[in-house]
């Protein structure tokens, strides 16, 4: 089973507590296909996280609509899962119980199956041996692995990642980028992955398609296909073509980033 997403002329306006309205997203169209890794890249305040939340169903669009397999998205559903920017692990649950968070309500699943799923994703994210550790005993990178495993455990068709590596140190971040490809395996599982980041290099390295967002109201300035075969190694980042793509995106985003900075 694999899903596709259509985003049609989506706008989002917010009301600030001061009464001022903010036009966060200004007319976005997207056609997202299964087995593809998409990135939303753009300056702070470009509406990329808002767009992610709307696809997830946490926020309704002000105008336009988002279709998941032809049905309008009205709220979070079990076929979507989020990897949060902050790990958001429950401090009173150990690794296994945190990973289990999203599947323990699934009545059709026996305790043994649940255990097997937890074991499987504990293995995949490389946390064997840490099952009974509590979040405060884990490093930031390990916490993000649990965060990822928790989302993968519900076996979502759509995996939403909201700057998941932003709080990691530079080296851990590089390693996680490389490992993420194996851990999520979207090509074979037919998942749609949407990855929000403001790190251009990260976006290009991971994605099949990069969406470049303009500053508020966020629109898509360009949709860039990244041609390198997957899985990629960090070495790709040194290839001239990679650097060229990265450079082109920066050219595109620099003005927008400046606007964001002056805001």
């Amino acid at each position, binding site marked *: 089973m694999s899903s596709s997403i259509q985003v049609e002329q989506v706008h989002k306006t917010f009301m600030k507590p001061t009464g001022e309205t903010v036009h966060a997203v200004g007319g976005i169209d997207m056609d997202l296909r299964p087995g593809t890794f998409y990135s939303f890249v753009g300056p702070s305040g470009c509406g990329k996280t808002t767009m992610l939340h709307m696809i*997830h169903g*946490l926020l309704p669009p002000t105008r336009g609509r988002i279709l998941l397999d032809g049905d309008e998205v009205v709220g*979070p*559903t*079990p076929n979507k*899962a*989020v990897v*949060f920017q*902050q790990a*958001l692990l*429950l*401090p*009173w*649950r*150990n690794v296994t119980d945190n990973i289990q*968070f*999203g599947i323990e*309500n699934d009545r059709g699943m026996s305790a043994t199956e649940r255990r097997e799923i937890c074991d499987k994703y504990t293995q995949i994210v490389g946390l064997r041996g840490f099952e009974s550790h*509590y*979040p*405060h*005993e884990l490093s930031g990178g390990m916490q993000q692995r649990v965060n990822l495993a928790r989302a993968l455990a*519900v076996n979502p068709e759509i995996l939403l990642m909201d700057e998941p590596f932003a709080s990691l140190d530079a080296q851990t971040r590089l390693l996680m980028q490389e490992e993420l490809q194996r851990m999520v395996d979207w090509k074979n599982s037919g998942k749609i992955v949407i990855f929000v980041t403001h790190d251009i290099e990260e976006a290009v390295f991971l994605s099949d398609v990069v969406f470049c967002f303009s500053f508020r109201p966020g629109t898509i300035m360009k949709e860039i296909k990244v041609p390198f075969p997957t899985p990629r190694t960090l070495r790709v980042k040194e290839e001239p073509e990679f650097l060229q793509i990265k450079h082109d995106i920066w050219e595109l985003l620099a003005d927008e980033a400046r606007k964001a900075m002056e805001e």
Partner: protein
Amino acid sequence: MGALSNFYQEQRRWLNAIFGIGVVAAFWSFADWQVNSELFFVGPWRVVTYTYGLFASGEILDDLYISGIEFFWGFGVAAFAGIAFGMIFGISRVFREFFDPWLSAVYATPSVALAPLIIIWFGVDLTAKIVIVLITAVVPIVLNTYTGVLSVGKEFQTLANSFCIPQRQVLYKILIPGSLPYIVTGLRLGISRGIVGVVVGEYFGAYAGLGYQLFKGLDTFNMPLMMSCAAMLAGTGVVLNQVILVIERRMAPWRDSTLQE
């Protein structure tokens, strides 16, 4: 030398506590020796032997039972009601804004000021004492529980929504465990205040109880009885606090490492 310092490191908590008790007892004994009049002061050893005497003769057992009942029901109801109301306060902003002034008012009012009213309304029997203990103990439990609920970040609500966790499960999967450390603090404060409530309640008319015995000691110039009752009240507080801490450690192992050091 190494073995001795290792022994000290391992048993440090206990050794320090015992040492602390010893030092204070020494000063206390010295003061007693200086005052040298049982009308005004008694030493620690006398308190121990006098308390032992009260138990041996059985004359204190009724009082312990009565005060125990007062505390048990008063604090028990306060704990349940306090946690329940604290949760509602934490979840519902309207409820919180509506009742907050009253909660603060009850918290600020000394139990000594409320007790006479309650005695008049409920009579001199057990009910009045239970109500006094309840009212004194419940407020810190409510306050701490609701502070605890508020301390659980909004982002955990988002987390629950994202994973399609039904709202009623949020209560016991997130809000209750998340506020547990605060609830424990509330219960510990409630214990201390509840014990005060017992004594205050018995001050305004009683036929038995630890507080009653204490004030009887005051009326009859029985200093050993007064100090013995005070010591028993203090001891109860210490023991109950330890019980709560042990329960917390059992229920909240994730806090273990942060609590230990």
